[in-house]
């Protein structure tokens, strides 16, 4: 078993980092994400939001891995998260659902507002292979190396979304995006705080990735 933990400090406050984290798919650093679905979502009595997402990721087996054991290099990943807007904490756990004998990667990540108004991300991962055949250690080491590289890419993805959110909040002009093209309410309808010119950030951002055709 390999264990890994790392902390990272974002200069931005918790609400925007958390938003970026949940908006992180798709981004150019996450081309391996094939699909992402919410399979359950509830608000608790204490006001937290619990979400379960099912994500399909494309992977690649290392060249030294025996052929014919893993028929497809895709993996279903379950992600369970809790968002507490009052305590300003996001907790999120993920693990793969298939190929678990070859390797199971469990990740726990937390985003917490610091007293300075920044956001501390703490990540922990546990990597276990039950493969045997003298390859267990090698698989776990490979998994750890990949996990570290992916964590770096994932952070670059969140940072990219973060900078787009920041820019779109600075520019209250719309980017020509009809807000109700899909028949859903515009983001502005949801503002609960009129002191901040952030209405519709998401709606605008959406069209940067998916220009209306």
């Amino acid at each position, binding site marked *: 078993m390999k264990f890994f933990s790392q902390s990272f400090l974002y200069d931005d406050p*918790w*609400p925007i980092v958390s*938003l970026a984290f*949940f*908006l992180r*798919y*798709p981004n150019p650093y996450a081309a391996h*994400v*094939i*699909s*992402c*679905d*919410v*399979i359950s979502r509830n*608000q608790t*009595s*204490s*006001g*937290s*939001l*619990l979400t379960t997402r*099912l994500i*399909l990721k494309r992977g690649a087996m290392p060249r030294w891995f025996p052929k014919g054991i893993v028929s497809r290099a895709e993996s*279903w990943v*379950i992600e*369970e*998260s*809790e*968002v*507490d*807007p*009052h*305590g300003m*904490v996001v*907790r999120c*756990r993920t*693990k793969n*659902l298939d190929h*678990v004998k070859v390797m*199971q990667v469990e990740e726990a990540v937390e985003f917490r507002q610091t007293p300075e108004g920044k956001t501390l991300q703490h990540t922990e991962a546990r990597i276990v292979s039950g493969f045997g055949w003298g390859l267990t250690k090698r698989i776990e080491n490979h998994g750890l190396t990949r996990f570290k590289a992916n964590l770096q890419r994932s952070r670059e993805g969140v940072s990219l979304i973060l900078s787009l959110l920041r820019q779109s909040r600075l520019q209250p002009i719309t980017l020509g995006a009809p807000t109700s093209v*899909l*028949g*859903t*309410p*515009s*983001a502005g*309808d*949801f*503002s*609960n*705080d009129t002191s*901040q010119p*952030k209405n*519709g*950030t*998401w*709606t605008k951002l*959406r069209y940067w*990735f*998916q220009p209306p055709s």
Partner: protein
Amino acid sequence: MANSLSAECTPLKEKYDTCFNAWFEGYLEPAVAASSSERAAYSKQKADEFEAKCGKVWQQYRECIQRAVKEKGLDKLLQQAREENPLKEPPPPPVVQTFKKTS
């Protein structure tokens, strides 16, 4: 927004994501409310707001995705994963309030 695992559900997922994300952006920034009764009121208000704006599309998307999950046999995979290695309950919220709940 990433695709749905079922092409059939992708249009509903896009509608739902658009609606949810707009709601979520506001949800993340509650006006500073210190007491637990204010928090409870805030939660209720956000839940009602979500239901009013996104409830219908969420129900449609959820039905679609639940059907797709079954068709692809993923429900068994999910259940198996939970039995073999139950996902832990998320830890309780940090102790920031020590006063009693009023509701």
